[in-house]
């Protein structure tokens, strides 16, 4: 996979990452030594059976969680020993998250949901509103700024979540089963949107999915099994 000559520093580099939950009898090793490099701008799908450790891996990559052992270098920085504040700041400035369950703030308008990450960046209101409106427009929700999640369809809610994830123009977009709750047509729309963000804005995308046709949008598929990387392939015709 590595190109000969001066290989550019990958955005992600994992060396021997393990994650152990619990203690004593209840000890469970969810990740048992992951080595992985992901260059900038790649669209990677993570697949694997239930309980294989996909979410655990994503949480570590997304700095929501820390590995038990191993090295994790993100954008040239050793982040495996970052404390929670450093991890929060990293997430704030470089990461965007899309969750399976949308995870929008209830009783909060689409616009307010989308501008939330900007609020934590301390951006003044006018800029915040403008960027949030722009992001909502980018996901095709021009007319729905004032709607609360309860007043939006599932696909629209996920698009608000995508707008919230990209409004900060992140380096990486993490998506844990972004289409898990959506019907086929809506899934296709959402995937088209994510693919466009990857190709047009060069955002690196890490996506967990169970479905092969969803994974087919990615340039690369990483298969996880029992806490180890089982297969790492470029789909036919990929980049």
């Amino acid at each position, binding site marked *: 996979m590595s190109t000969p000559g001066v290989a550019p520093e990958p955005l992600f580099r994992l060396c021997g990452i393990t994650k152990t939950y619990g203690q004593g009898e209840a000890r469970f090793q969810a990740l048992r030594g992951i080595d992985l490099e992901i260059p900038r701008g790649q669209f990677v799908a993570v697949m694997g059976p239930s309980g294989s450790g996909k979410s655990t891996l994503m949480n570590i990559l997304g700095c929501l969680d820390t590995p038990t052992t191993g090295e994790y270098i993100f954008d040239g920085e050793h982040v495996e020993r970052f404390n929670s504040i450093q991890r929060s700041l990293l997430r704030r400035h470089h990461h965007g998250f899309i969750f399976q369950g949308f*995870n929008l703030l209830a009783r909060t308008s689409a616009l307010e949901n989308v501008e939330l990450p900007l609020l934590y960046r301390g951006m003044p209101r006018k800029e915040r509103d403008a960027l949030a409106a722009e992001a909502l427009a980018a996901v095709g929700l021009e007319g729905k700024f004032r709607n609360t999640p309860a007043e939006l369809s599932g696909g629209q809610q996920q698009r608000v979540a995508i707008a919230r994830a990209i409004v900060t123009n992140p380096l990486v977009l993490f998506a844990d089963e972004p289409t898990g709750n959506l019907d086929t047509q809506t899934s296709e729309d959402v995937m088209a949107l994510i693919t466009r963000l990857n190709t047009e804005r060069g955002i690196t995308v890490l996506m967990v999915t169970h479905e092969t046709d969803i994974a087919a949008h990615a340039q690369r598929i990483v298969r996880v099994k029992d806490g180890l990387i089982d297969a790492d392939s470029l789909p036919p015709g990929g980049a």
Partner: protein
Amino acid sequence: MLLNALLLALREIRRNLMRAFLTVLGIVIGVAAVITMVTVGQGATDAVTAQVASLGSNLIIVRPGAAIGMPQGGVARFKMSDAAALADRVTNIESVAPVTNRSVSIVYQQKNWTTSVIGTTPEYFPIANREIASGRAFNTGDVRSGRAVCTIGNTVRKELFGNEDPVGAKLRVNTMACEVIGVLATKGQSSFGMDQDDTIILPITTLQRRLAGRQGTQQVGQIYVSGKDGVDGDVLVAEIGAVMRELRNLAANESDDFSVMDTRQIAQALSSTTRVMTSLLGAVAGVSLLVGGIGIMNIMLVSVTERTREIGIRLAIGALPREVLWQFLVEAVTLSSLGGLIGVLLALLASAGMASAMNVPFNFDASINLIAFGFAAAVGVVFGFMPARRAAQLDPIEALRHE
């Protein structure tokens, strides 16, 4: 960051107005109760204090009968000579006025009015702190000759004369014709609710001879005494008591058949009682404020649990734990401060209403308002902190997984 936290807190409150209102209800009631109790209590104390001042300096009243309120039947009344003897023999006395009260009906032209008449000597005016608004007071000559002249209180003037100048007019007091020579300055109600302006004052001799009917001409109802400046009230009371016992020929084993009361001491006791009552009521109200604070904590804790997922989202998209802490803390403080503010406004209405209903002055006291408001805000900090810290300590992954 604080501004952000305030913005988020206000959004949350606006989103849940009903819950916010119920949350702060305890604080509202607590603050309103504390301020109202203290303000009204303060007003009552002020009323008593004003009463003390209006009594005049060192007014001591000597009455027949063992104690105030005890039946005076069968007890020998005072004589004019008792008053004179007191003035003679107790050197600490500044002046003495014998006083006799009666109820009379007075008539002027078509109007008539029932009021109380005070028969006394000119010394009464300074002792009882009564001033003349127009005309003059009667003098010793009027007393000696028992002239039918009187000074009238403002209520009597209003009832009988309206806008007319009463000085020089002739009244009929029961069956006696009497000339008005002066009008008393207004004094208002006494602490017992009596209208002190509903009275007329005339020479005691006139009252004894012409209005007292068959009762002895020498009889005196009570003796008003004022002490010299700087004389201790207790000393004066004791000295007067000793002389009175001699004047009334009491043997060593007999108890007093008269009472000497220092009105200032009574008033002071009364005002200190009022003050104690005020602090007690204030303290009880303070407890209710504390209970209100616990209410806030309760709701905030529930709210943290309810909003676990929301907190997870905030943490996942890059909120710092301390920003979450601030959000919840500011929310609690904003709530309790709003509650405090509503409480202050409510207290303003309640204490104004109660003050006028209870007939005590309403003095807006900024400091108790500030204290109660500050306490409400502090309650928000104290009881908001625990839930806020709990929220900030949540693990983002756990919180996101929370249903």
